[in-house]
C-alpha cells in the first residue's frame, strides 16, 4: 500500500481551477519531485494534502486512511509535515522556542524519552541542522539560510513519516545548497519519505527517482527524471514551442 495516495484532487478558486483532477501515489521511502512552471498549482496541491485547503473533489489517503477532511494540525499529528515556500518562523520567539512548539504537539511529544524535555529535544534538533549557536537568537534576526534550516528542524521535530518540502533550495548559496542536498540524502537513508517541490531542477534531479510534472493544475507527465526531461509535452511547457 502506498504511503500517500492522492486521487483526482480538484480545487477551484472562483473561475480558476488551480488543481485539476490530479492523482499520484508515493511509496514509503521514496523521494518524489513535483515540478512545473510557476502557477502550476504545486503549492496549492501541498495545501490540499496538508489540510490547509479543502478540495472541491477527490481524496487524499495516508497509510490507507482518508485524511481529506482533516484539520491541518490533525494531519501533522498523523505524520505529514511540511515546510513553506516563504519561510514562516515565529518571529518573536528565539530559535529554540520555534522548535519547542513542534515538540509540544501531541506527535512531537510522543518520541520524548523518559528524561528528555521538549527543550532538550529542541536543542537536539537545532544541533541536527547546525543551528545550535543561534539557539537564543530571536527568529526575526536570523539570515535566510538559517531560517530555511530552522523551518526544516521545525518540521522534523514533529516526527513525520512524510515530509513535504516546498522549494527548500530557494535563496540558498552554493554552500548551503550542498549542505541541504546532503541533508536530504541523509534523511532519505534514515527512512523519511519525501515529496519535494523545486525549481532548481539540477539539484532536484540529483535527489529524486521519480518526478511528477504539473501544468495549469493538471498532471502532464510522470516518470524518472530522464523520462520526464525527454517528454515532449514537458519540454514544450518549460521551453515553449518550436524547439
Amino acid at each position, binding site marked *: 500500500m502506498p504511503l500517500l495516495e492522492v486521487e483526482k484532487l480538484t480545487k477551484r478558486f472562483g473561475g480558476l481551477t488551480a488543481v485539476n483532477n490530479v492523482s499520484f501515489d508515493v511509496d514509503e521511502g521514496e523521494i518524489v519531485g513535483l515540478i512545473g512552471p510557476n502557477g502550476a498549482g504545486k*503549492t496549492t496541491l501541498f*495545501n490540499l494534502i496538508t489540510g*490547509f*485547503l479543502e478540495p472541491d473533489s477527490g481524496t487524499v489517503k495516508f497509510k490507507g486512511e482518508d485524511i481529506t477532511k482533516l484539520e491541518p494540525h490533525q494531519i501533522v499529528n498523523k505524520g505529514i509535515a511540511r515546510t*513553506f515556500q516563504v519561510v514562516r518562523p515565529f518571529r518573536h520567539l528565539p530559535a529554540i522556542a520555534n522548535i519547542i512548539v513542534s515538540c509540544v504537539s501531541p506527535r512531537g511529544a510522543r518520541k520524548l524519552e523518559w528524561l528528555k524535555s521538549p527543550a532538550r529535544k529542541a536543542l537536539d534538533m537545532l544541533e541536527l541542522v547546525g543551528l545550535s549557536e543561534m539557539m537564543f537568537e530571536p527568529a526575526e534576526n536570523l539570515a535566510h539560510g538559517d531560517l530555511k534550516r530552522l523551518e526544516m528542524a521545525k518540521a522534523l521535530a514533529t516526527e513525520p513519516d512524510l515530509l513535504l518540502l516546498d522549494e527548500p533550495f530557494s535563496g540558498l548559496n552554493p554552500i548551503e545548497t550542498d549542505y541541504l542536498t546532503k541533508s536530504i540524502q541523509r534523511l532519505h537513508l534514515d527512512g523519511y519519505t519525501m515529496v519535494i517541490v523545486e525549481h532548481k531542477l539540477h539539484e532536484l534531479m540529483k535527489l529524486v527517482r521519480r518526478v511528477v510534472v504539473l501544468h495549469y493544475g493538471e498532471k502532464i507527465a510522470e516518470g524518472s527524471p530522464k523520462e520526464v526531461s525527454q517528454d515532449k509535452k514537458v519540454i514544450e511547457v518549460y521551453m515553449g514551442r518550436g524547439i
Partner: protein
Amino acid sequence: MLEDLIVNGAMLGALYALLALGFTLIYGVAKILNLSHGAFYMLGAYLFYAFATMAQLEPFLALILAIILVGFIGAIIYRLFVSPIIESEVIVMVVTLGAALILQYLVMMLFAKGGAIEHTPLPRLLSGGLYFIGVWMPLPKILAFAVSFSLLAMLWIFISKSKTGGAMRAMAQDREAAMLMGINTERLCMLTMALSATLAALAGVLIPTSMYTDAKPDMWMEPLIISFAVVILGGLGSIKGSLVGAFIIAYAEQFVLLFLVGGESLSGTASLAVMVLVLLLRPKGLFGKRVEME
C-alpha cells in the same frame, strides 16, 4: 405602521450609511480601526453648535465650516498620532481611543461648563414637515435624508470613477503595490482620514438634528458602536457592505422600535444582536474578504 417602518428605516439607513462609510473607508485604505470615529461625529455636532448658536452664523454655513474643520482635525490626528505607529493594530486602537478621549475632554472643558455630562441643544435647521404615503416626515429628517443620499451617490461616483478614488481602491487591495505604482500612500491616508472625519461630522449634525436629540460630550460611543455593527455585518473595507449593512441595521432598529413590545428601551440592542448573529452565522460579514490562506 408598515409605511412608518419603510420610510423611517430608509431615512435612518442613509444616515447610518453616511456614518459607517467613513469608518470602512479608513479601514480599507489604511487598515486601521479608527476608534476616534465616533469622536468626529461628536465634534461635528459641537462645532456646528459653536458656529451656529455661539457665533450666530447661518446654519448651513456653520455646517460646512464645522465639517471641514473636523476633516482637518482628522487629518492632523492621523499625521501626528496614527502614522508613526501604524504597523501595530493594537497600538493604533489605543492611540485613536486616546484621541477620542482627548477630544471628549476638550469638548467638556470648552462647551459643558459645570456638569460632567451636559446636554447641549442643537439649533433646528428647519421646521415643519409633510406627509408622504401617510407618514409624517419632519423637514429636518427629509433634509438629512436628501443630503446623505446625495452625498452617498457622489461618494460612490468619486470612488469608482475618479483617479483619487482609484488610488484608494488600489491601496485597499495592496498597499505595497500601490506604493510601487507611485501612489503617495501617506498623503492618501491623510486624505482618506479627512474624508472619513468629514462624513462622520456630517452625520454628527444630521442625526441629532433630525432626531431632536441633544449633544453630550460622551455621545461618541453610540455612533462608534453603530459603525462597528454596520461594518461587521457588511464586511470591513467593503463600501457595498457598509451601504447594505447600514440599511439592514436601520430597519432592524426601526422594527424593534415599532413592532416589539417595550421596543423603546431595546432599540439599541438591534445593532448588538446583529453583531452576535453575524459572528455565529457568517463571521466575515456579507461582503467581507474571504479567509486568507497564506
